[in-house]
């Protein structure tokens, strides 16, 4: 298995290359270039997974002292702690999302979605957006679920509205927002309105302007095994490992920025109303907080206006570093390069308007 590179495999992995993260993350850039030059038939030796593992283990053993010295420094320690914390806080939600996605793929026939959602896409978008209320997870769960929906024939616009709305407006998140802001129930209400509004707007924008070749809909056709149970297991394992890898990328970026960006300096700029909205939006992207916890953090950032804190709560579950990585992994890079900035602008705009109206 490990060392029988067929010609098929070579060409396929090149096809996949454009939809992956930057090569730097893999250290395989040069190997890929070699591959492109070499004829696919060549039986040249190439390092396999076992070789990579062995080299990795040898490096760790040789440089263990340096590694430990590095992680004795408080900044590195803090970064490592935050990395591990984000991973193990998010994994359960990712697992939940992956299990639901597996159930959707294996057990729910495509015809169910045709009956459940309105035929007209313009109507399917708000219905799917409102359906986000029922998934009691945070943003990590909704990425694989909406991928599963698309692979079962749900229109991307509707699935995307669901993707954005469910982590922002589900009951767990709304209750925690309500608890975190005692005496300010408008915050939870504003979160519901702005979250749903921005999600539906993005769904409609995708319906109007989105192109199908921007998005890579997860293809499950090859995963259909002999039994539903086996399909379920294979889909779940595959989705979990795939999304998990991207979660690692996002958590690394979040941990690094958490240590490098002096958030206390940003916080001193909170007095200016426009600046405070932009800073809170940027903080939401950088900090990658779980949507079930972000309200408590927002509540403590008292030097910022209520409107800018609402922006923080609306942007966070829709655009943050780990979500960008997860969405890029699931739907492709050309998708996330367009979708994430557009969502950011729409979320900031809608949340500012709702905040201006409520507070």
């Amino acid at each position: 298995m490990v060392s029988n590179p067929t010609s098929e495999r070579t060409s396929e992995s090149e096809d996949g290359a454009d939809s992956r993260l930057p090569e730097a993350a893999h250290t395989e850039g040069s190997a890929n270039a070699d591959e492109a030059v070499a004829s696919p038939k060549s039986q040249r030796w190439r390092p396999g997974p076992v070789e990579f593992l062995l080299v990795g283990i040898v490096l760790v053993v040789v440089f263990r002292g340096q590694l430990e010295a590095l992680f004795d420094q408080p900044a590195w320690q803090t970064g490592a702690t935050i990395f591990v914390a984000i991973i193990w806080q998010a994994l359960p939600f990712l697992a939940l999302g992956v299990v639901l996605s597996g159930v959707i793929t294996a057990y729910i026939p495509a015809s169910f979605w045709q009956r459940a959602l309105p035929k007209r896409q313009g109507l399917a978008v708000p219905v799917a957006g409102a359906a986000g209320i029922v998934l009691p997870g945070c943003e990590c769960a909704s990425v694989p679920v909406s991928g599963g929906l698309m692979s079962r024939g749900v229109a991307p616009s509707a699935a995307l509205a669901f993707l954005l709305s469910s982590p922002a407006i589900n009951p767990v998140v709304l209750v925690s927002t309500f608890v975190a802001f005692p005496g300010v129930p408008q915050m939870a209400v504003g979160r519901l309105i702005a979250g749903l509004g921005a999600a539906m707007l993005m769904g409609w924008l995708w319906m109007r302007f989105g192109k199908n070749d921007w998005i890579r809909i997860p293809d499950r056709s090859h995963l259909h095994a002999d039994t539903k149970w086996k399909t379920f297991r294979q889909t779940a394992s595959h989705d979990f490992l795939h999304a998990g890898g991207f979660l690692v990328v996002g958590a690394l970026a979040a941990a690094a920025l958490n240590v490098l960006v002096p958030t206390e300096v940003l916080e001193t700029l909170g007095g200016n109303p426009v600046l405070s909205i932009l800073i809170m939006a940027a903080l939401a992207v950088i900090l990658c907080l779980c949507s079930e916890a972000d309200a408590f953090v927002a509540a403590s950032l008292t030097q910022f206006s209520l409107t800018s804190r609402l922006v923080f709560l609306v942007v966070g579950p829709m655009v943050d570093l780990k979500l960008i990585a997860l969405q890029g992994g699931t739907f492709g890079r050309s998708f996330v390069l367009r979708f994430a900035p557009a969502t950011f602008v729409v979320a900031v705009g809608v949340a500012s308007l709702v905040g201006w109206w409520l507070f």
Partner: protein
Amino acid sequence: MAVLTREIQALLLVMLGSATLRISTTDIFLRYVKESFRPFPFATGLLLLMLGIWAVVDIWREDRAARQAADSAAAQDGQAPHGADLSEEGHSNNGHSDASHSDDGHSHGGMRIAWLLILPVAAIALIAPPSLGAFTAERAESTVSSSYDSYEYPALPSTDPVPLAVSEFAERAVWDNKRSLEGREVELTGFVSNPGKRGMSNPDAPWYLSRLTLACCAADASAIKIEAVGAEPLPSDTWVKVTGTWLPGGETDTARATPWIEVHSVTEIPEPKNTYE
């Protein structure tokens, strides 16, 4: 090429599942995520481990089926030298008929990203990074939120000194209209953080008695700091038990406040199991 084969997928699932089970059943977990979240990673660890074991069983079964198919083909043929060739062919045929598996690895070129899941496993196995401490507290402003709407807190128990959580002490110092802390000897447990460039309201106060609180996980930690007035200087990250009395005069009625305590005694203690409040 580090293409993700079925075997590697199974290996990654088993590794990550075991690591998740391990940290969710030990005190290490408390360094990263709030205690009440523990059941979720535990269930996730079980799930991943089961998926991994099932994947191994699948591989093992299919390999055996392939071998049996090859054997019976060889037996029918009855020619030993050719039998070896056939068994190899049988194997690769199996690989093709089972396209579902040999495909998973690379039809999504991005599957190679799954290799990165080794990083968190290695981080736990090799480093097991410690709880957040003074580095985080020194970078953050002290944050004291109030959990009572009325700002009128119930009276403290009558023990002397009263053991209090740092957060409880700070909350009463900043928000309590009834000033329940007044004249009471309290006992607080926290770690030492030293003032950075800013926030030194009293130059005689050498350090802050600090504690971090979590809403979910260490990424959302916020700091509570109490200025220790009249105490000998101590290095950051020293865990201490402090007795003393509230010193009114710090900021009140704002979430960004650093209350004061007049220190009577300081005892160094080992780091508690759960460093967060």
